């Protein structure tokens, strides 16, 4: 490749990534040269500004026609644009939570690392959403994973944090290895790593053994990625990691990292397996033939996540299981494969982003002072700070899917998607609805603490909420209610700007 070809690429479509990369570099340099005694909070604000800049540049690219550069390894299609939007908004809010994070154990000295590792993780997720090649996909995934491992272990002196980082690294690497193993089969079958070429190549395989191998690859990729999504039965690491990691990192893992997980699942499954034959008599493409397996995973995830959440007393573990359950709902979208699957996924992930991050901001604020994460910490919250209690109640109602909130519209959309196909997924929908009712128990349990129980210690005076947290809670609250009452704002935006994601398959 000579310089001329290199310059002829339309680098403009990578602007958001370049901004994040630049900011990450700048942050690490600033951290290096700043005096030890100076507060690292400023780095957080620089990072926040960087994400905003990336967001603006991404909005500028929304009208851009689909383009792929660097030998089709980096694509900017509507799928990439729409999901990067979620990633950036989510990360900006997580960063605000991190800025408002004031732990007791003196995290101050590592705070600089936190911010640039965070930016690196974000960059990984963005590359994943834009990749057109297994290699870039994998690089993005690893960038995200490795940064997350370190982030999870950020509280160096906390035993829980150490444990969580350790568990996360081991489980994560196994998952990565399995995914990679699966990918290698596909590479072996097709001789290319490019997703588009692969898909073209796979349409024409008829050899039964090849199809068998491809099925094996599907199986391994799904298992590997299922670790990343924290879906049953590969969810075991999530509760420990969520509990041990610092709260902003937990928020990041449960929202941004999960979104990225779904991005990669969609990228891989629908690029590779959508056209590959399954070898059965009806001539179904592989993804449709194996739909039931995903449906099974979805059902198991919803049941396990929601049932085990009932027994949790630690609020972060509770949210870990809640997040597993939510991943189950999202898998229903993939399993049902309706024509508006991308819309549904996008809307639900967006709604989930706001309701979960809002809840995490409040969790951080409530658990911060006492150091305890038991749900009894929420007792009497309504008496102390009614605003927080009501905001938390609305986030919980949204997570539980009660009308008037974005969560309800999201669920409605998922049901629609699952029931519209000719043979509707009635079992899956029934499981989803039944487990949703189960989830009322634990979500309302937190509300019972906030509204019914008196506070344990009487002298809990007013605690000042950091401005950054107030901003996150305010934005999340506004969005949760707005998209619950007028969801058409989001759907119109989607329908008018992303052209139904038709360019995903081009």
């Amino acid at each position, binding site marked *: 490749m000579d310089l001329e070809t290199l310059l002829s690429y339309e680098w403009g479509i990578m602007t958001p990534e370049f901004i994040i990369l630049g900011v990450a570099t700048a942050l690490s340099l600033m951290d290096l040269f700043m005096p030890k005694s100076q507060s690292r909070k400023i780095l957080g604000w620089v990072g926040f500004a960087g994400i905003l800049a990336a967001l603006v540049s991404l909005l500028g690219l929304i009208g851009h026609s689909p383009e792929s550069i660097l030998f089709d390894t980096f694509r900017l299609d509507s799928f990439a644009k729409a999901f990067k939007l979620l990633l950036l908004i989510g990360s900006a809010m997580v960063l605000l939570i991190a800025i408002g994070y004031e732990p007791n154990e003196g995290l101050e000295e590592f705070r600089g690392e936190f911010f640039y590792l965070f930016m690196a993780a974000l960059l990984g997720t963005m590359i994943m959403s834009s990749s057109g090649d297994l290699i870039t996909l994998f690089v993005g995934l690893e960038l995200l994973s490795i940064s997350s491992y370190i982030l999870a272990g950020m509280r160096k002196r906390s035993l829980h944090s150490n444990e969580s980082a350790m568990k996360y690294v081991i489980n994560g690497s196994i998952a990565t290895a399995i995914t990679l193993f699966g990918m290698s089969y596909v590479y072996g079958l097709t001789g290319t790593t490019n997703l588009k070429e692969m898909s073209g190549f796979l349409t024409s395989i008829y050899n039964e053994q090849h199809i068998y191998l491809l099925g094996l690859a599907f199986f391994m990729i799904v298992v590997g990625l299922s670790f990343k999504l924290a879906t049953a039965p590969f969810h075991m690491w999530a509760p420990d990691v969520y509990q041990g990691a610092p709260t902003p990192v937990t928020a990041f893992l449960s929202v941004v990292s999960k979104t990225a997980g779904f991005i990669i699942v969609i990228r891989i499954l629908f690029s590779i397996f959508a056209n590959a034959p399954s070898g059965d008599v009806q001539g179904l493409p592989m993804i449709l033939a194996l739909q039931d397996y995903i449906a099974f995973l979805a059902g198991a995830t919803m049941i396990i996540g929601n049932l085990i959440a009932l027994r949790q007393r630690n609020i972060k573990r509770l949210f870990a299981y809640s997040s597993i359950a939510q991943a189950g709902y999202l898998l229903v979208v993939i399993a049902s494969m309706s024509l508006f699957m991308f819309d549904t996924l996008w809307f639900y992930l967006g709604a989930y982003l706001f309701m979960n991050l809002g809840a995490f901001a409040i969790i951080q604020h409530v658990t911060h002072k006492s150091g305890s994460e038991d749900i009894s910490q929420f007792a009497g919250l309504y008496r102390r700070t009614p605003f927080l209690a009501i905001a938390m109640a609305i986030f919980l109602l949204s997570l539980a899917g009660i009308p008037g909130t974005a969560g309800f519209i999201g669920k409605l959309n998922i049901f629609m998607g699952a*029931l519209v196909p000719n043979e*509707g997924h009635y079992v899956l929908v029934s499981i989803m609805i039944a487990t949703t009712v189960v989830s009322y128990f634990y979500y309302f349990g937190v509300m*019972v603490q906030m509204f019914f129980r008196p506070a344990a210690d009487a002298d809990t005076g007013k605690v000042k909420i950091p401005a950054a947290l107030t901003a996150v809670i305010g934005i999340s609250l506004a969005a949760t209610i707005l998209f619950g009452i007028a969801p058409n704002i989001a759907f119109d935006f989607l329908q008018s700007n992303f052209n139904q994601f038709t360019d995903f398959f081009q």
Partner: protein
Amino acid sequence: MNLAYFLSILVFSPLLGILVLSFLPRTQESLIKTVGFLATLPALILALIAYFQYRAGAGLEQLNEKVSWIQFGDSGQLGNLFSIDYELGLDGFSLIMIVLTAVLSTLAAIASIHIKKEWKGYFMLFLLLEVGMLGVFAAENLILFFIFFEITLIPTFFLIGKWGYYEKENAAYSFLIYNGLGSAVLLIVIMVLFARTGTANIDALMAAMNADNPQLVAPISENMKMGMLIALLIAFGVKLPIFPLHSWMVRVHVQAPPSIVMLHAGVLLKIGAFGLIRFGMGIFPEQFQSLAVWLAVLGVVNLLYGAFLAFVQTDFKMVLAYSSISHMGIVLIGLGALNEAGIQGAIFQVVSHGLIAALLFFLVGVFYERFQTSNIQNLGGLAKGMPITAGFLLAGAMASLGLPGMSGFVSEFMAFLGLFKEMPILAAVGTIGIIMTAVYLLRAVLGITYGKAHRDFAGITDMKKFEFVPVLVLVGLIVLIGVYPSVLSEPLTSTLETIMLGIGG
């Protein structure tokens, strides 16, 4: 009069009260109670305006509202965009239910004067509950109906759990879980209908299900229709409640504050009946006919079961709770009869029981305020200490057991008239329930009024001024319906015609 947003204003007017309340300091007890009461008035006035205009001959169609709301799916590839409109509308039946809701809300707001703590939170939730209840009856499409239906769930949970009696949290949870499951089942039916037909509008669905409509997105088999109707029966059966699904309701009636039970027994239970009539009968008329016998059987079971259990209770609230179950049996009997008299009886019973239950539970609140008990024995001898209250209690009991000249008589008479025509043996069995009703109510009420006095009534005031308002209004309405039933039957004529047309009668 500009009617463009009439219904929306009616349904959402309590929100204004919530807004005002949120600016009030939480310690201003009397101010908060006054605002809470005043906030229920706009809906009441508007509901009455609509009612009297309709009686005067104005059409209800002019009140319909429709705004495009949510569009799912993609218009480009699919061709059929799943859209949900925000549409409100009324027919005679829902108009009556709205009037009932508005009247009972105002009266329950008066009864809320007995609330002892956290008035601000109480009234905010109370008004939100009113929005939900009004919306349920005004909704013209199933998804909107479901949304309002769920909105009633959340405030009720908190109102029971925070302001109720001793075992309030258990009651709140069992309310949440039973009703949550009920609405989950309902949601499945709604979503299947919506996904299959592409519309959630009730009238459009009725049309689509009636004829072999070729425009369906996907066909619905007969078995599936039957399944959906049974699911609806379960969903609304929890709410009503039908026999094996009733245990939560007894708990709620005993543990919730009386003002909330007034609404709960008066309106929330009726959503079950409303749903069965409007959706069960309206959308699945043929399947409903084949289930009619079972409904009548369930009705008789409910009637007898409730009556016998009410007979053995020692607590007056328990008597009333089981009496509610028993009286809901009459609604089922009327529906099971599936003729004009029966259905009319069922609807009459829905309204009449709403008024009577509200009256009786208001009186329970009055007792509880004074004696901190609702045990029949402990209350004994009331006629001496509180003659006026005792008199009203007797009147309420008479209405409940169906004394001619009161609303209970009209509804029971019509429901049984309907059933005797179709299934005379079953109806004969059912009449045992009517006798039992007289027995348990007289036992309980006579025990309270003329029973042996176990307490000293010195220093106990009889009814206070403000307590007269709800009681007089309710007794007045009960007698009005009893003496002059056409206040109900005339607005219902067109609704009944539509229903009868649907079931081919």
